[in-house]
């Protein structure tokens, strides 16, 4: 009478024994699997008539965003509210930063009001590590410069796993502005740790010189990167970070690297098309692909809330998380 679904699968790790989430670099494959499993439970909460659980009642979470963000900030805020945390949003335009206050001073002043967690988005790589050292609050990296964006990589992995059941053995191709992308740095670390076969592709000027160090294949020949891919992830051409001449024009970029329906035929028949947003339609992705049947771009956004709920919940034990390790 016993069926496989009756037996509860026991994962090797049942809690995150750390204070902060600074990057995927720190996480073991078991910890990544725990976050993804927890996110599955959290996703169900979002389908209830009352989309709220009391788990983080009485906890204060500060969303400290030094860079513009719609998706990530909103996603964190919804995740916090679904867990019953009290949330506080601080954006650059309205903060004392415009009066010349340093990041460390801003953080210490916030700490003095004893929040439990700080979600930080900052244009400098390593900003979260600085806060992690000086703050007792749990620090969650919501994107630091060109370094990491761990919750994005976790939600991408969650979205892939939801469709393909597992990450190991999949060919995942990432195309776009590799040089300036924190999404890339988090994703290649996560995907290689989970056993995926990762290819990165872009103009030679936008491929970081040491990217192969992470165990990925790098190429500027887009057809080679796409052939038999299970997942194609497109990265935004970050026009605001393009200080030099990395490629001749957006139109030429689209002609050589842009994802079109005809190019897509080289990939596996059940390929998934992903984009972390915001999209430049007609630059890295054609509209017919972004809105087409292979696109899971809006699933990524929906899953972002569940994954961030999982991270917030698992880290809510505070500094005692580490002391218990």
């Amino acid at each position: 009478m016993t069926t496989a679904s009756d037996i509860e699968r026991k994962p090797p790790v049942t809690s995150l024994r750390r204070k902060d989430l600074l990057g995927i670099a720190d996480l073991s494959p078991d910890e990544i699997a725990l976050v993804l499993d927890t996110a599955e439970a959290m996703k169900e909460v979002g389908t209830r008539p009352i989309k709220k659980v009391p788990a983080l009642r009485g906890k204060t979470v500060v969303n400290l965003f030094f860079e513009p963000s719609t998706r990530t900030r909103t996603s964190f805020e919804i995740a916090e509210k679904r867990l019953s945390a009290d949330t506080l949003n601080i954006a650059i335009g309205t903060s004392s930063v415009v009066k010349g206050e340093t990041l460390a001073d801003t953080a210490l002043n916030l700490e003095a009001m004893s929040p439990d967690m700080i979600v930080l988005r900052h244009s400098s790589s390593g900003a979260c590590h600085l806060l992690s050292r000086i703050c007792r609050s749990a620090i969650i990296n919501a994107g630091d410069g060109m370094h990491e964006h761990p919750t994005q990589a976790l939600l991408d992995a969650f979205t892939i796993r939801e469709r393909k059941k597992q990450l190991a053995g999949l060919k995942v191709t990432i195309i776009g502005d590799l040089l300036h992308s924190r999404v890339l740095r988090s994703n290649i670390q996560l995907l290689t740790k989970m056993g995926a076969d990762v290819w990165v592709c872009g103009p030679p000027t936008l491929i970081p010189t040491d990217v192969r160090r992470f165990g990925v294949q790098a190429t500027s020949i887009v057809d080679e990167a796409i052939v038999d891919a299970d997942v194609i992830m497109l990265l935004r051409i970050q026009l605001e970070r393009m200080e030099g001449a990395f490629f001749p024009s957006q139109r030429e970029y689209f002609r050589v690297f842009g994802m079109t329906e005809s190019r897509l035929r080289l990939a596996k028949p059940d390929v998934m098309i992903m984009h972390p947003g915001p999209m430049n339609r007609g630059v890295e992705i054609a509209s017919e692909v972004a809105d087409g049947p292979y696109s899971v771009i809006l699933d990524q956004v929906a899953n972002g809330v569940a994954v961030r709920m999982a991270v917030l919940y698992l880290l809510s034990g505070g500094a005692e998380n580490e002391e218990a390790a």
Partner: protein
Amino acid sequence: MSIVMDADRIGRTLTRIAHEIVERNKGVDELALVGVRTRGVPLARRLARSLREITGHDVPTGALDITLYRDDLMRLQIGPQPQVRRTEIQFSIDNRKILLVDDVLYTGRTTRAALDALIDFGRPKAIQLIVLVDRGHRELPIKADYVGKNLPTSPDESVQVRLLEIDGQDEVVLDGGAA
């Protein structure tokens, strides 16, 4: 360590509870079973099978994880949070009589959390509590409607329910204590 219920006894007890459910509710219309994770879930599924054998009708069955509703979650600085698993209630609980199933009733705190969680899914007509073992020592005003076995215990003893689906065998064991 002593075995207080063996596999046969557990089987007969669940069959008896299934008959009590049918008798008290005059059939199984409007009923649904919700098992509290972990061991309430297979118990709820077994009761659903018995109810189908007795009445010929299927009773919707779900699984409830109460971790996010625990009253000790944020009170104590306990460090790492316990693992959360999926809640699966794929039917509306509005206007149904919900049979909440758990393995052991002890302080009543798990049941309190389960009641809070259930209410977030809708407005059931009634909630009835089924437990395989009631070991006493309630800390909240909670009482079971169907009890497999009343087992007087001391607080330093532990009651372990083992089920085939999870533990590979059916038995209820009383452990430790002064005696």
